[in-house]
Every structure is written in C-alpha cells, then in structure tokens.
C-alpha cells in the first residue's frame, strides 16, 4: 500500500527532466514526498521535521550528476543523511570489569526475554564469555520459566527461581552469584513496563542503582509507531540507556522507529532481532536500515556509480590541465563542486603524481560548506570570459559579481587571490616535475581551496 521513496520522487521530480543544480522549488516538492514517506515508515513526526529541514539545506543548489535524474540525486542525499543519523558504523557492547551487568528494559512484549537469551548465547559463543542470566519479571505469569527454558536451550546458566522474591532481591542474589562463581557477564531480564508507570519506573531505577550496569539496553519493537519517541525519551531520562536492540526486523515493517529512537536518545542501535530463534540476533547495519525505511532500492548504488565515474573523468581531465599548468576559474568551480559533493580533495589530487603521502592529511581535512557555496556563487556570477581570463576582472566587474552573488568585494578578491596562488603553484609544479616533490613534508598544499582546511 505504501510506495517507496524512489517511486514517489520519480513522479514528482522526473517531470522536470532538466540538468543543473536542484532548485529550491524542486527540492520543496521532493521534501513533501519525503515527509510522507518517512511518516508512512513510522518515523516520528518531530524527527521527520528535523530531518526534512536538514535535507533541504543539503539539497538546494546541489548539482545533479550526469547520467542520473534529479529524483535519483535527491534519493541519494536522503539516503546518505539517513545512514549518518542512524549511526555510522556498528557498535558492540561495552562490558567493563567482570561481572559486567547488562540490564534489559522496555515495554511489555517488546522482546526483552528472548533478546536476553539471544545475547547470552552470542556472548558465550562469539566472545567466549561466561554468562549468567536472571529474570526480575515477577509480574507476567511464567516469565521466569520462560527465561529459564530459553537459557537451557542456549546452554547458558540461569539463576535459580525462588518464589516470592521481589525484583530487587533477585537482582541482589544474581549479582552475588555472578561474583562468587566468577561469571564475566550477568544479563538481567526485567518485567515489561510502561514508561508512564511511575511505580515500575522507580523500581527499575532502584535496580539500576543496585547493579550499576555496564550496559542498559532498551529493547524496542520495529513495528512501533509514533509512540517510539515518548518511550525512548522517558526510558533514557529516567533510567539512562546506553544502547538499543530493535526486534522483529524479520517482519515487513519499514522500521522508522529505529530513526526515532536513535534521534531522541542519541544512543546506538547495537543489535537487531530477526526471528524468534536464539540465533536470530544480528549486528545493526545503518545502511540496510536506511534502505529499508525508505525503500530506495538500487538508486543509491546507481548514483554512487555515476558519481564515481564522473569523479574519475573529471579528476583525470583536471589533472591533465593542471599538469600543463593550466587552471582557470571554470576549473576551480568544478573543483569546488567536487569537493562539496564528494567531501574531499583526495579524488582529484590522487590523480597527480607523488601525492599519495598527502592523502591522509587531505582526507582528514574538513569542508566549510557555506564558504564553498559562496565561492561557487561568486564564480557563477561571472561571465564565461571572466572565468577563463580572471585578469580582466577589475573594480567595476568585482562590484557586479559581488552584488550578483550576494557576497562582498573582499570575498571576490579573496577568491581571485586564491586562484592566482593556485596557478602559481601549478606553474612551479610543472617546473619541479611533480607535485609531491614540491610539497614534501611542508604540510598542506598551498593551493587547497580555502574552504578546505585541516583540523
């Protein structure tokens, strides 16, 4: 019933079928579709609003790569931002000195008990830890038996059940046993509770204070809708969570809750549950999750490939020109563009001889996006003649260019100076017979565009 983002945007944007940068109007229409797609994927509304604002800022003015459509370009921008927000690379559990306590929390029925057993099995098998599990769930009928059964299946020890004990007493006994018997990890399963249930949240806080967990995991269901924000926020505020496990990803829900929970708590999603069996636990992959939330299909790969090809062609061309000591403002404009789009100079410079040594440094450099955008605007306000022969740009032209680009004459001057320095450098490179020799250990190449600076 719900279409993926790619189809939605195709309808809106591909009618335009034109080249050039994405305009504010194109992006505005696309953003409306993105908003709906995210909401249908159950990303919570406040999170959607932030996301859309953010993507707008990134997309307006973005050049559409050759061989991809505007829709595909937007999808790629959305995808990259989603991946970034979902949390970069995968994070494992951080277990301190043994016995490290892992506290499992969450709403009723979210999958805490099952995940407890899965995690125990994972730690025993993969990390060769000795794990003890204990259930503090004295409320749901047969909850402790459920964990005991699962532990047996996992080949993990579970704390003996003593009828009549309350959660705190069980926690104390579990900790005691874990210390005495030298367990590496103690995983505590707890009763499901509503975040608004004051009494039970207080109980959980008391357990936390007693056991001082190394990890407090929120177990959340991937089918969750808008409520994910309230739940995650309250658990984090009241108990303080260190990570999230997202269960039931074996279903067909888009799982927008992943983004909601992550955005609200800032905590990493450490694992995902992909089935009812004990081996059905996997590390979290932000890339996969992003594609799942918005069903972006192959578009992302397509755009990446197009970007690669273009980057390569363009870099080769620039390298040839640079090697000949030729480098006008058109070239600078293209270079700025690539820097902005591809997030680094490395692509271009890698084509030049002797540059490998510098790569690390250049990769580590950061972009000042706004500055680059302004510089592009300045060059865009020039005539082709001016771009090819910057030496003709005198006072009145400078004023016109500044006015046209919404910048100042000083900024125009700074750019022109920058360009002159780059040209000078290239001439010397040509004489010296290679860029690497010239730069040596001196650090950053003098000709880096001003928006790029080491940090």
């Amino acid at each position, binding site marked *: *019933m*719900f279409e993926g983002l790619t189809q939605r945007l195709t309808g809106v944007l591909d009618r335009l079928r034109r080249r050039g940068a994405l305009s504010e109007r194109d992006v505005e229409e696309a953003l409306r579709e993105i908003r*709906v797609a995210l*909401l*249908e*994927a*159950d990303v*919570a*509304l406040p999170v959607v609003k932030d996301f859309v604002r953010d993507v707008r800022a990134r997309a307006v003015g973005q050049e559409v790569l050759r061989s991809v459509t505007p829709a595909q370009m937007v999808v790629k921008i959305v995808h990259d931002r989603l991946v970034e927000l979902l949390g970069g690379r995968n994070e494992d559990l951080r277990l301190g000195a043994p016995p490290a306590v892992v506290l499992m929390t969450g*709403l*009723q*029925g*979210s*999958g805490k008990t099952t995940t407890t057993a899965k995690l125990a099995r994972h730690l025993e098998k993969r990390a060769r830890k000795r794990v003890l599990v204990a259930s503090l769930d004295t*409320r*749901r*009928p*047969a*909850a402790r*038996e*459920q*964990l*005991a*059964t*699962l532990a047996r*299946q996992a080949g993990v020890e579970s704390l003996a059940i003593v009828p009549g004990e309350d959660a705190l007493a069980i926690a104390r006994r579990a900790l005691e046993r874990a210390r005495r018997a030298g367990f590496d990890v103690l995983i505590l399963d707890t009763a499901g509770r*509503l*975040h*608004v249930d004051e009494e039970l949240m207080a109980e959980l806080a008391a357990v936390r204070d007693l056991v001082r967990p190394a990890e407090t995991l929120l177990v959340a*269901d991937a*089918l*969750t*809708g*808008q*409520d*994910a924000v*309230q*739940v995650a926020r309250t658990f984090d505020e009241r108990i303080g969570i260190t990570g999230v496990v997202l269960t*039931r990803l*074996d*279903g*067909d*829900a*888009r799982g*927008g*809750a992943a983004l909601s929970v992550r955005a609200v708590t800032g905590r990493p999603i450490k694992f995902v549950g992909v089935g*009812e069996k004990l081996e059905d636990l996997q590390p979290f992959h932000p890339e996969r999750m992003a594609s799942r939330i918005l069903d972006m299909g192959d578009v992302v790969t397509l755009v990446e490939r197009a970007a690669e090809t273009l980057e390569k062609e363009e870099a080769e061309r620039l390298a040839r020109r640079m090697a000949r000591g030729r480098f006008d403002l058109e070239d600078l404009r293209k270079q700025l563009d690539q820097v902005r789009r591809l997030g680094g100079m490395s692509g271009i410079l890698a084509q030049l001889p002797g540059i490998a040594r510098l790569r690390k440094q250049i990769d580590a450099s950061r972009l000042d996006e706004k500055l680059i955008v302004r510089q592009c605007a300045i060059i865009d306000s020039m005539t082709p003649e001016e771009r090819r022969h910057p030496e003709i740009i005198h006072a009145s032209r400078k004023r016109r260019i500044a006015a046209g680009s919404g910048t100042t004459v000083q900024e125009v001057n700074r750019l022109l100076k920058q360009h002159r320095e780059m040209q000078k450098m290239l001439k010397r490179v040509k004489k010296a017979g290679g860029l690497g020799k010239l730069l040596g250990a001196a650090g950053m190449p003098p000709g880096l565009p001003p928006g790029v600076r080491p940090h």
Partner: protein
Amino acid sequence: MSGERGWFGRLRERLSRTSRALGARLGALVRRRRVDDELLEELEEALILADMGVETATRLTERLRRERFGREVEERELRETLAGWITEILARVERPLTVDPTRRPHVILVVGVNGTGKTTTIGKLAHRFAAEGPRPVLAACDTFRAAAVEQLVAWGERVGAPVVTGRPGADAAGLAYEALQRARREGADVLLIDTAGRLHNKKALMDELAKIRRVLKKLDPEAPHDTLLVLDATTGQNAHAQVATFRELVEVTGLVVTKLDGTAKGGVVVALAERFGLPVHFVGVGEGVEDLRPFRAGAFARALLDLDAPAEAPAS
C-alpha cells in the same frame, strides 16, 4: 456504567500525561482563533502523532478546511468537530462480541503478531465470560514459545477456567482439535484458543493457523465462530499489513486493541476502520484481569484528540 467512566477517566488521565505539548495547548483550546493554515497544520499533526496515518489525517483536516476555513472559532470546537467525524467512522466498527449459547462451545480463535497481548487478552476474556455466565475453556495452542503454556495455565488458575494443554512442540492444530472435543464433552459455552505470536509475512506460520481452522471445521463446520486479531496500540502503519494478511488468510472477524494504558493512542484503528470495516470489540488498558473494556467509538475518538470524556457515556 461507572466502569465505563472509570476506564475513560483512566485512559484520559494517561493520555494527557502523554503529550505534554498537546496538554499545554489544552488551555488554549478556548481561545478563539481563525481557522488558517497554521491551525489546520497543528490539528493534522496531532492526528499524525496519534498514528492515524498521513492519508486519513490529511483527509480529515482538508474537510475542516473546506467547511471552516477563515472562520473564527475556539480550538476546542474544531477538535470536537474532528472527534465527531472520527466517531462516525468508528461507530460502524463498535460492535460487541456476542457468544451464541446454543453452539456449545462458541469457538474463539485468538491470533496476532508476537507480543501483542493475545494470552493476556484470553485471560481477561475468560474472566469476563465467567462473570457474565458463559463457561469458558482455554486451549494452550502456543506450543512454540518458551513457557507459553505455563503462562496460560497461570491465567486459567487466576480466572478459574480449565486449560487444555499439550507437550511443548506438539502440533497446534491437533491440540485445538482435542480441545474442542474436550470443551464439548464438558459442556463448555466458549472455547478460547491461544496461538503462538507470528509475523504475518511468514508463510509457514500462517499456514499453520489455516490448518488449525481446517481441523476445527472437521468437528464443527462453523468453527471458529470468531477469530480475533489482537493489535498492540503502539503499532504504527504496519497494522495495515497485519490486518490485511490475517484477514485474508484466517478470516479475522474482529479486533482487540491492547496497551491503550500507555501513551500510544492507536489512531491507526481509524484508518483500519475505513479500509476494512472490521468490528473492534475490546480495548486492553492494563495487565490486570479487569483491564479489558468494550470498545467505545466516542470515547476512543475524543481521547485521540485530547478531549474530555463525553457528558454521557454511550450506552452499549
């Protein structure tokens, strides 16, 4: 009907704890405002935040735009209007679950995705039936999940209902057959069949449910007389897929919405009512044996919009 009011009061109280943002706006409800884009957007957002889905939320606020744009009104009035329209939609699905005493037993199959509250709902239903007259028998056909049988047995003890059980891993359909035979023998009025939670996109597991139905029909071609799909109120738009698939594969006859005692409002039910028109029989409002209430369209709609209880609790 003090029970109704009590439930509503509780629901209301919990819901208002929900959205402090919305709650803070309650004071502004009586302020007169012009119906403009901003106000309409606020209302649309309130509906989306309740999980109603963009389509339904937009349609309702667009109707407000057509009928009220530019007028000066109190915000409360607008919310009342919206609640009225939603009540109309939901009124069609507000239908009690009736047990036919001549069937002996009236067979109710309870299905749903994992962890939604099937077993608990069966416990609560059994309690309710036993109090009203019909004698229930429970069948523990979740032979898959660890300690699922023990969980239902504990509920059986709590509400004084016999529970038919099998060995863990036993064939669920075979056990359902046995349970129906036994319920007949014992002259029970209702047979409540618990099943393992299953995601609707798992074909093998859905086939297993279909098999339970087939086997029951060998004994009683009309059975199961009701098939209840239990939905968790925290579920978002995936509820659409759940209802569509369960309905198609096991002929769901009605819904139960659980966990409305949290901050989730279950707004997706409105969209479901429009799309499928399946009766909603009950709502779950807690983990206790008493925490099951008949579904009330008006109360549900007003709670969605953060409005007070209706002056008069609707009669059943």
